[in-house]
């Protein structure tokens, strides 16, 4: 319980700091902190494989890519400026929070009896090769296409 509240506060405050903070590099660091908090939340739901994947891919790889992108744009572009949409965006975000929370509270979720699974990695691996084998293979094609596309896009010609 304490773990949940601590991790939730960590994730939400660092997510808010991403938008508030002025320096774009600090924003990336807060993004990493938020990813780590969300990985901790996965562990409180005993989803250990997803948590490890989150730390490896999001907090590791994606954040490094973001830092590269920030570093490759010049210093004058690194401020975290806003535009004139602040008020409508605030209203829209408030509406999203209230609508989703009300639906979440009002709906009668059919919850199953929770069993604490020991390790999810084996089950996820089994499911990836039997019922989800087609999406699994397509995901590899998507990754190859994205890699080739990125190389072609940034190539000097």
């Amino acid at each position, binding site marked *: 319980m304490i773990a949940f509240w601590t991790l939730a506060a960590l994730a939400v405050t660092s997510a808010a700091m991403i938008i508030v903070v002025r320096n*774009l590099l600090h924003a990336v660091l807060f993004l990493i902190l938020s990813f780590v908090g969300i990985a901790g939340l996965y562990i409180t739901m*005993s*989803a250990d494989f997803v948590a490890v994947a989150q730390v490896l891919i999001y907090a590791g790889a994606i954040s490094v890519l973001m830092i*590269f992108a920030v570093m490759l744009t010049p210093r004058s572009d690194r401020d975290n400026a806003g535009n004139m949409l602040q008020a409508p965006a605030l209203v829209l975000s408030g509406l999203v929070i209230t609508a989703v929370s009300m639906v979440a509270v009002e709906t009668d979720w059919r919850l199953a009896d929770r069993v604490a699974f020991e390790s*999810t990695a084996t089950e996820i691996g089994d499911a990836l090769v039997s019922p989800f084998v087609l999406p699994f293979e397509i*995901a590899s094609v998507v*990754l190859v296409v*994205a890699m080739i596309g990125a190389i072609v*896009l940034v190539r000097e010609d």
Partner: protein
Amino acid sequence: MEPVAQQIPLEHFLALSAILFSLGVYGVLTRRNAVLILMSVELMLNAASINMVAFAAYASPEKFTGMIFAVFIITIAAAEVGLALAIILRIFRNLGTANVDEVDELKW
């Protein structure tokens, strides 16, 4: 593993992911730098996968569909970030800016 989440109701996770999602919406709508918009999109994807994992843990613990969805979301996010950053670098090289409101070449 000690099931800590047993005491936490499902609605807590849903509300948390709603908050994270709307922070992402706010970031996408109000910020000008393309990299920060991409970061906000990542935040929204993360909120969605918190929902997936929460439903997998609370509603169908014997199946792992939600967690597999979360793994696929992470995979697609990796591909998407690589491509989007390549596009941003290309825009920056061609137009000299990474702010989305200054990229208005298509505006008539």
